[in-house]
């Protein structure tokens, strides 16, 4: 990767949406919106609601399916010199495995991020992120189905993130990313109705950043595989925090909606920090928080 700063799944579409505004070649990687075996329409509207320091979303992972994605978006993405990480999800372990198997030989796909933790999918997907046995089965299944780099994305709403981080490593994951959105809810007090059609959703944005830093710190402390820090990054300092607590890469999420070029600005900010402190690589920062 040219930079440790990627764009997070679900916040950057499949790439073309931002290509006019952001030089995609300057991103560390593009993590595309979650792909399932078959096309999915997603949730009813309203799908998002802005709250203090954050955004709650319940989009419901609409996607064109593996074949639709490969046909509609991979030719576009192959034109760029940027790693493509496909976020994958399924309703059953078998679906995860099948999606992973199908991507194994798709030219231009560099890694799979295993979405076990989107809170907006019923029929079980949220369980994959919070039930340790289910989590192991999914990661193990995906690992066995692909030669690609496998990165499970951990849910924040577990009692001990370290257990899930270790389980991912034990199952053969090449890295882990965290956190996914934080389960949340908002009510319109005038109508007494939930502000999302799905009732609950996942909170993202600056409001979850400190929660994510703590979880990344805990997870990074117990594994030897690389950790991707995600959650509420809006500026370089936020990314530096993740690096210092042990992440070796980061992904910018919701901030791209507001400032499409956030990931590039974070990259520049990290480079300036390294310069200012006489450091030659990001690696020299990883895990250097002083306790």
């Amino acid at each position: 990767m040219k930079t440790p700063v990627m764009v997070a799944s679900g916040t950057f579409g499949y790439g073309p949406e931002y290509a006019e505004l952001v030089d995609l070649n300057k991103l560390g990687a593009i993590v595309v919106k979650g792909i399932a075996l078959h096309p999915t329409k997603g949730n009813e509207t309203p799908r998002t609601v802005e709250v203090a320091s954050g955004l709650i979303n319940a989009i419901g992972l609409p996607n064109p399916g593996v074949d639709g994605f490969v046909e509609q978006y991979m030719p576009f993405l192959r034109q760029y010199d940027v790693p493509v990480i496909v976020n994958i999800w399924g309703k059953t372990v078998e679906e995860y495995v099948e999606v992973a198997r199908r991507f194994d030989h798709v030219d231009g796909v560099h890694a799979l991020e295993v979405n076990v933790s989107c809170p907006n999918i019923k029929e079980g997907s949220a369980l994959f992120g919070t039930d340790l046995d289910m989590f192991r089965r999914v990661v193990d299944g995906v690992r066995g189905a692909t030669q690609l780099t496998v990165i499970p994305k951990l849910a924040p709403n577990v009692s001990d993130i370290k257990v899930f981080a270790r389980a991912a490593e034990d199952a053969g994951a090449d890295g882990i990313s965290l956190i996914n959105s934080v389960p949340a809810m908002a009510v319109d007090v005038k109508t007494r109705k939930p502000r999302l059609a799905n009732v609950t959703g996942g909170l993202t944005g600056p409001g979850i950043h400190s929660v994510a830093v703590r979880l990344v710190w805990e997870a990074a402390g117990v594994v030897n595989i690389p950790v991707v820090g995600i959650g509420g990054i809006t500026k370089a300092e936020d990314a530096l925090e993740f690096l210092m607590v042990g992440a070796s890469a980061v992904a910018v999420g919701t901030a791209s909606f507001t400032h499409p070029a956030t990931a590039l600005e974070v990259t520049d900010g990290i480079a300036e920090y390294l310069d200012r402190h006489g450091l030659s690589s990001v690696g020299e920062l990883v895990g250097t928080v002083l306790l």
Partner: protein
Amino acid sequence: MQCETVKVVHQDEVQGGYRLLWLDAPGIAPHVRPGQFVHVLVPHMEEALLRRPFSVYKADGPVLQILYKGVGKGTRTMTYLRPGDQLSLIGPLGNGYPGLSTGRYPILVAGGYGMAALYLLARALPVQGVAFFGGQSASDILCVDEFEALGWEVRISTEDGTRGERGIITGVIDAWWTARDADAEPVEAYACGPNGMLHAVARRAMERDWRAWVSVDRNMGCGVGACLTCVLKVRSEEGGWAWKRSCKEGPVFECREICWEMEEAG
């Protein structure tokens, strides 16, 4: 489409809380087509994350104008913008209104600041027809002189009767339609306003064989098609429905595309 840091040239109140904001946006303004919008990052509003979408009222050279009303926390914050202040703008966004089909007679239908969103179209159309403007009260009727200066006949209604006919604008449209020669040219309608008004126009369009382009107003997130917040249900070729993004495939749709029955249910 580009992301540009633009400068506030001027801002003043037009009437009844409606405000006009002039922005020096040399990268965006010259490229705006009728019905397109810009996505504004409201400065000094750190607790809010997202940009706010605004239709472009006028675009002349490097300057574009937005007509808005301070009703939410974003727009209320915007009322404090002063000349020289800078803000970030993404645009132009959305598909905009198509031109007039040959042999059709144009009508415009607008409610509130929907009138502003139709100005560039009114200026661009080769034929001037009738503009129907509706509002709650006289202070909600905007830009009438501007449309008349372009050659449009403006017909007005207000719910409280303080300007034009008392009632909602569909009553005025129906009276106009009834009085019209049966063999006059077929109508092409362009509408912008509250969703109930758009649906009322759509029903008439389908009954009377008008073509009708409506600009839908949806909560919007990214504005560029990535977040999938602003979707609405449109009829698909296979006979079912599909989500379309109002920021990308819209905000203007031909009224027959929209699954109104599902919108109402939702």
